C-alpha cells in the first residue's frame, strides 16, 4: 500500500453543513383539547411517552407541586405502591417525573411492544391515585432530609438566592423553605392532583416505531384527562440588581451567579444574542473558559447560559472558584464584558463559533429522540420548526458590529445581579 506523506501542520479542509432536516411530529388534536404529537421512524425497539401537565412548581405552592409529582404513582384504589412498581417491573418499564416551574413532565420508557401495557398500569394508577397518608409522611420526611444536605452546598445557596432576587415579584420567585415541610398537607396534594393532573393535560409526546392501532388506543386513553388549563400567572417582573455575598464558614470554594433579565426565542434579538452568549461563555473555547479556567486556573468550569421559560428568559453566568480568587473572578468577568462592548470579535473566532453552533444543531436534530426535544423547545414558547431555519440564517448573517451593539445593550455590569456564596 502506498502511503501519502502527511504534513501534520496542515489542518484538513473543513466542509460546511449544507443541510439540516427538521422533522415535525405528527400532531393530533384530542377531544379534550390537548395535542398528541407522534414521532415514528425509529429503527430500534425503544419507545417512550411523555405527558405534560400544567402542574409545575409555580402553579400552586412549590412543596405541594413537588410532593404531588413525587407521589403520583404511589398507591391507588386498586394497588399499593409496591404492587404498581412490581407490575411496571414485569413489563420492564421505567418512568420519571420532572418538574419545571410551569410543567410536570411524566415520561415512561419501555420497549415498543410493552409501552402500551406499561402505560395502562400507569394510567389506572394515576387516575386512581389516593396519596396514602403513610406515603405522604415518608416522602415529606425523606425530602426534608435531602433538603438539609442541599442547604450545605454553596452552589445550591447561590442559585436559590439568585433566582429569588432575579424573579422577585413573580410567582417564579417562590421556593420551598425548610419550615414548609412541617406543614405539608395531604388534602392539598389530593386537590392539586385533581385539578392539575386529571384536568391539566397540556400535550403528549410519543416516540417509537408504534402501530397505528396502538397510537389510536393511546389517544382514547388520553382523552380521559381533561384539559382545562389555568391562565398563566401575570408576569410582572421587578428584578433586583447589585451584589450580595453570603458567607459560609469553612468553605473552600465560593459559588458565583451573575445575571440579568433577558428574553426567550420569541424576541427578535434572540438568535444573534445566542451567538454572543456562546462567544462569552457557552462552549469550551469561550472567553470565560479561556480566561478564567484555561489562563488563570481559578475554576474547574464556568459557563454562561440563557434560561428560557414560556413568559421570559434570563442570562446567568455560573461558576465555583477558590474563595481567595472570588473577587478576581468578578473582575475578569467584568473585563470580558468590556472587551465585547468595545472591541469587535475577530473574524476567525466568530466563524469558529458559527460553525460550532451549526454542528451542535445538526447533532440536536439527529434521530427521533433528539428531534423531539428540539421540537419541544420551540413548541413550548409558541413557535414552530421554522424557527430553526430563521436561526440558521441569522447565525450565518450576524456580524461583529451587531454583536458589539448587543453587548453594549445587554452586557451592562451595573444592571447585573451579582450573587456569591462561600
Amino acid at each position: 500500500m502506498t502511503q501519502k506523506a502527511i504534513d501534520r501542520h496542515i489542518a484538513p479542509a473543513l466542509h460546511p453543513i449544507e443541510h439540516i432536516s427538521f422533522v415535525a411530529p405528527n400532531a393530533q388534536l384530542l377531544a379534550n383539547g390537548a395535542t398528541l404529537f407522534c414521532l415514528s421512524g425509529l429503527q430500534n425497539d425503544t419507545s417512550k411517552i411523555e405527558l405534560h401537565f400544567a402542574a409545575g412548581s409555580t402553579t400552586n405552592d412549590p412543596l405541594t407541586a413537588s410532593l404531588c409529582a413525587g407521589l403520583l404513582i404511589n398507591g391507588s384504589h386498586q394497588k399499593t405502591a409496591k404492587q404498581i412498581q412490581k407490575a411496571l417491573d414485569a413489563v420492564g418499564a421505567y418512568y420519571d417525573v420532572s418538574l419545571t416551574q410551569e410543567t410536570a413532565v411524566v415520561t415512561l420508557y419501555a420497549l415498543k411492544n410493552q409501552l402500551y401495557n406499561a402505560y395502562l398500569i400507569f394510567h389506572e394508577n394515576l387516575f386512581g391515585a389516593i396519596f396514602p397518608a403513610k406515603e405522604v409522611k415518608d416522602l415529606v420526611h425523606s425530602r426534608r432530609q435531602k433538603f438539609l444536605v442541599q442547604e450545605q452546598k454553596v452552589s445550591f445557596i447561590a442559585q436559590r438566592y439568585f433566582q429569588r432576587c432575579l424573579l422577585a415579584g413573580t410567582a417564579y420567585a417562590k421556593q420551598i423553605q425548610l419550615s414548609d415541610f412541617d406543614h405539608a398537607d395531604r388534602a392539598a396534594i389530593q386537590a392539586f392532583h385533581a385539578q392539575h393532573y386529571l384536568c391539566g393535560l397540556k400535550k403528549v409526546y410519543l416516540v417509537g416505531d408504534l402501530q397505528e392501532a396502538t397510537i389510536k388506543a393511546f389517544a382514547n386513553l388520553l382523552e380521559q384527562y381533561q384539559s382545562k388549563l389555568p391562565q398563566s400567572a401575570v408576569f410582572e417582573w421587578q428584578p433586583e440588581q447589585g451584589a450580595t455575598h453570603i458567607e459560609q464558614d469553612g468553605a473552600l470554594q465560593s459559588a458565583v451567579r451573575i445575571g440579568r433579565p433577558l428574553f426567550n426565542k420569541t424576541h427578535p434579538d434572540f438568535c444573534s444574542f445566542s451567538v454572543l452568549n456562546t462567544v462569552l461563555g457557552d462552549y469550551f473555547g469561550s472567553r470565560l473558559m479561556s480566561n478564567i479556567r484555561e489562563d488563570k486556573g481559578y475554576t474547574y468550569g464556568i459557563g454562561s447560559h440563557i434560561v428560557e421559560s414560556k413568559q421570559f428568559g434570563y442570562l446567568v453566568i455560573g461558576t465555583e472558584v477558590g474563595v481567595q480568587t472570588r473577587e478576581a473572578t468578578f473582575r475578569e468577568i467584568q473585563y470580558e464584558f468590556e472587551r465585547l462592548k468595545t472591541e469587535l470579535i475577530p473574524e476567525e473566532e466568530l466563524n469558529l463559533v458559527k460553525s460550532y453552533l451549526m454542528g451542535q444543531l445538526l447533532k440536536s436534530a439527529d434521530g427521533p429522540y433528539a428531534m423531539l426535544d428540539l421540537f419541544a423547545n420551540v413548541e413550548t414558547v409558541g413557535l414552530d420548526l421554522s424557527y430553526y431555519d430563521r436561526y440558521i440564517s441569522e447565525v450565518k448573517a450576524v456580524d461583529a458590529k451587531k454583536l458589539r451593539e448587543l453587548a453594549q445593550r445587554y452586557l451592562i455590569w451595573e444592571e447585573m445581579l451579582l450573587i456569591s456564596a462561600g
Partner: protein
Amino acid sequence: MITFERFNLDNGLRVLFHKEPTTPMAVVNVLYDVGARDEDPQQTGFAHLFEHLMFGGSVHIPDFDAPLQAAGGQSNAFTSNDITNYYDVLPAQNLDTALWLESDRMLSLAFTPKSLEVQRQVVIEEFKQRYLNQPYGDAWLHLRPLAYQKHPYRWATIGKNIKHIQDATMSDVRDFFKKHYHPGNAILCIVGNFELATIKEKVNFYFSDIPSQPKSARKLSPEPPQKKFRIKTIQRKVPASSFYYAFQMGKRLDQDYYLSDLLSDHMGNEKTGILFTELQRKKKLVSEITAYITGSIDNGLFVISGKINPKRSLSELDAVLWPLLDQYKSKKMSQSALRELILKLQTAKAFQDQGLLSRAMNLSFFELLGSAELINQESARFENIQTKDLQTYAQQLLDKNRCSLLQIQAQ
C-alpha cells in the same frame, strides 16, 4: 446486536468501526489503557491530571479544541481507575479533523510549562468542588483505602491528596506520556455512516506513522481476599450520619459481576427492594438507602449506602441490616423476580445503545477487556443465571468478614 469491523495497524493500534447509516454525525473514541490503578503510590492523580494536559496542544497543533469546534464538533474525556477515554463528536463530513487531532496528540504533546501550571490549578479546584466542598464528598477518599489494602484501587482517580498534584513536574509528565500514550496502548473506535475502505484509508493516513513502542507489562498487586471485618468511623458536622458497607466482589468479566449486578438491583430498588421496604419504610431507620456495584476491571465492590434518620443510630441500623442480608443467603429469589430484573436490564441497555457515543465507548471498552464481541454476549450472560446461582453467590458475597464499613457520624 451491534455489528463492527476490526483491523490493526502495524504500530499496534487497534481499530474498530461501527457503521450507523442513519446519522449525519461521526464519533471518534480513543481509549488509552491507563487509569489511576497504573499510578505510582507516591504520585497519585496523575492519569487524571494527564487527561487535562491532553487538551493543552500537541506537537504540531497548538490548540486541540479550536479546530474541532471550527469543524462543528466537540470533545471531552474521562479518567477512571482503569482507563482514560477521549471522544470527539462532529459532523461526519469533517471526520478528518478529529483523526488529525487525535493522531497528533497520540504522536506527542507540546508540553508547555504554562499548560501544566494552569491544569494543576484547575484540577485542584476540581478536587475542592467535587470532593472537599460538600458534605460526604470525600467519602470514597476514605472508603477506598479501607476496602483495598494492596491493590491500587485504594486511591481515587483525583488522587490521594492534593499534594501529589501540586508536586508534579514536567519530567514526571513526559515520562507518563512516554510510558502510556502510544498506539499499542490505545483502541480507536469510529462510528458513523462510512464505508470500511474509507475508514481504513483515513486511519492509515493519520495514524500509521506514529512509532510503535513496546507495551509495558502491568504488575498490579492483587487485593488479597479479605478475612476480617473492617470499620472506620469519622465524626463530622453533617446533616445526617451516613454509612457505606463495601463487600469484595469479582472482576468485570467474572460471573460475579453479573450476579452482583442483579443482586444490587433487586436489593436496592427504590420501591420494592428489601432495603427500602424494611429499613426505610417499615423500621424508619434511614432516610435513603441503596445498593450498587463499582464494576471495575479488577476486583470490584458491592456497596450498600445511605443516611440515618434523626434520632436513630448507625448501630441500630447495623443490628438490623445483617439479619436482613441473611435472607438472600437462606432463601431463593422467585423465578419471576429474576426474569423481571433481567428484562429491566435489557430495556435499559436498549435505551443506552441508542446513543452513538455510548456504542463507541462500550465497543472500545470490551475490546480492551478481550474482544469487542463481548458486547453482544452481555445479555446472554444475564439470561443464563438461575435463582440458585444467586443464592449461592449471596452466601459468598454478603459475608461480614469480607466487608469494609465506613461511617460518617453526625456530631
